[in-house]
């Protein structure tokens, strides 16, 4: 069952065309990676999905056309966008950040349980539960951002450069937790990553973008085996 489908998606910032026909398919509970160099359009693809950027082409979620919806409307449908730079709410505490993530939910007990789940998933956050988010380290902020996304009980999570600026061990911890999340919750994912090695530990398939278009698409196994990929993204 296809959960998310992009077909021929285009997007521009003013006169600059950033996406020039991007296609993507994410099955229920699946995880798809978007790889590529800087400026290839990876982040813009996620923004097109979450409605942050106006896009052309076709974007359907659960069979419904979601193009033209506001970001908060897209979130209400069950798509949680963890943006580049994390977007943590710095002046709020860790707990309040998580509560904001649960804003649309009405089940108080469920929210509390999910907060506990997040803290279990990310033990670092448990110690810092009453700190302001701005006092957290980069890795902890990333965890908090993912936690906030989890709180909305999404069906699909958009992860933008989750490893950016993190020490390799921290990035690995984050990805381990996300893998565990995927297994335990069945949330589907679209993962934008420059670190292809890391991405392949999480996603089943991926597409490589080049100047706003799909250059290569395939399963993780297929892509890992290709020479171009190995040389360009996996360090030879």
């Amino acid at each position, binding site marked *: 069952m296809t959960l998310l489908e992009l077909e021929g998606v285009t997007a521009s910032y003013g006169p600059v065309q950033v996406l020039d026909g991007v296609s993507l398919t994410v099955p229920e509970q699946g995880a798809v990676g978007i790889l590529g160099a800087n400026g290839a359009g990876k982040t813009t693809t996620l923004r097109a999905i979450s409605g942050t950027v106006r896009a052309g082409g076709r974007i359907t979620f659960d069979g419904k056309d979601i193009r033209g919806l*506001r970001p*908060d409307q897209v*979130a209400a449908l069950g798509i949680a966008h*963890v943006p580049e730079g994390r977007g943590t*709410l710095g002046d*709020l505490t860790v707990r*309040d950040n998580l509560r904001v993530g649960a804003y649309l939910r009405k089940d108080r007990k469920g929210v509390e349980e999910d907060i506990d789940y997040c803290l279990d998933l990310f033990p670092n956050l448990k110690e810092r539960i009453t700190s302001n988010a701005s006092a957290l380290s980069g890795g902890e902020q990333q965890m908090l951002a993912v936690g906030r996304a989890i709180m909305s009980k999404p069906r699909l999570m958009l992860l933008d450069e989750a490893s950016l600026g993190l020490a390799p061990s921290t990035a690995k911890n984050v990805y381990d937790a996300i893998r565990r999340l995927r297994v335990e919750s069945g949330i589907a994912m679209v993962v934008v990553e420059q670190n292809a090695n890391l991405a392949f530990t999480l996603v089943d398939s991926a597409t490589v973008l080049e100047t706003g278009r799909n250059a290569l698409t395939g399963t993780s196994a297929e892509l890992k085996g290709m020479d171009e990929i190995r040389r360009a993204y996996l360090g030879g």
Partner: protein
Amino acid sequence: MGKFVQLVVDGLSTGSVYGALALAIVLVHQATGLINFAQGGMAVLSAYVVWVLTNQGLPLIVAILIAIVFSVVFGALVERWLMRRFERGDPDTAVVVTIGLLTLITGVAGWLWTYNNQQFPSLFSLDTVSFLGVSVSVRSLGTTAVIVVAMLLLQGLFVGTKLGLALRAVAINPQSAAFSGLNVGRLLMVGWGLAAALGAVAAVLVAPQLTLTPGMLDNALVYALAAVILGGLTSPIGVVVAAWIIGILENLAAVYVPFIGFDLKVAVPFILIFVVLLVRPQGLFGRKNVVRV
């Protein structure tokens, strides 16, 4: 000594009015990133609503409640239809838009109800009561109390409720808030509505003393801005405390410093600013803002 206490109490009262206005300005700035020079004008408009309704025979309390509702709606609509375009853009442009709004409101009020000073009914009696062996004005005490309660209610809303959490989130990072499903536009409208309501409360309390006229809060706006400069845009408590200090000091200066007297009281906040800012450019409580290029 008695005179001194009276002046302090009265100063606290006018300072509360400035503080309410200043707090409204800070609220709006935190939510939408601009300084609303029309905050006082919007408040005066609500006072006119009360005046019109009481002239029709409605009891004062009822009129005030209606005016507060009016101010919330009006504030929300101003955000949606006037200011939305200019938020998150060049703040100087936004300020000029609010100045245009102020002009418009003043013009409408002046056209509908003339520029004459109108009598305004007082919520509190003009009696005095004995406080610490000194007779102080009931109105001053009442005004201070009502505004403090209003501010505490607002604070309670922000800290203790889900709506308050949402308002804070939107002010900090609207995009992140939207990603969590918050309707940013609607919440900004609520923020402006609440700020307008606070201003309305202040206007209604001070109108009996100042008499109602379209420019009634022009002076108060100046004091409120001074409080904002002193207290810092990032500190709600700071601006309120600064406003109280300004209110008290100007009253004391009016009486004890002959050169200043009553007519030049309005210079006091600026002398204060001069002095404080020589030492601490970010205000008494504010944080230094770092703007990335």
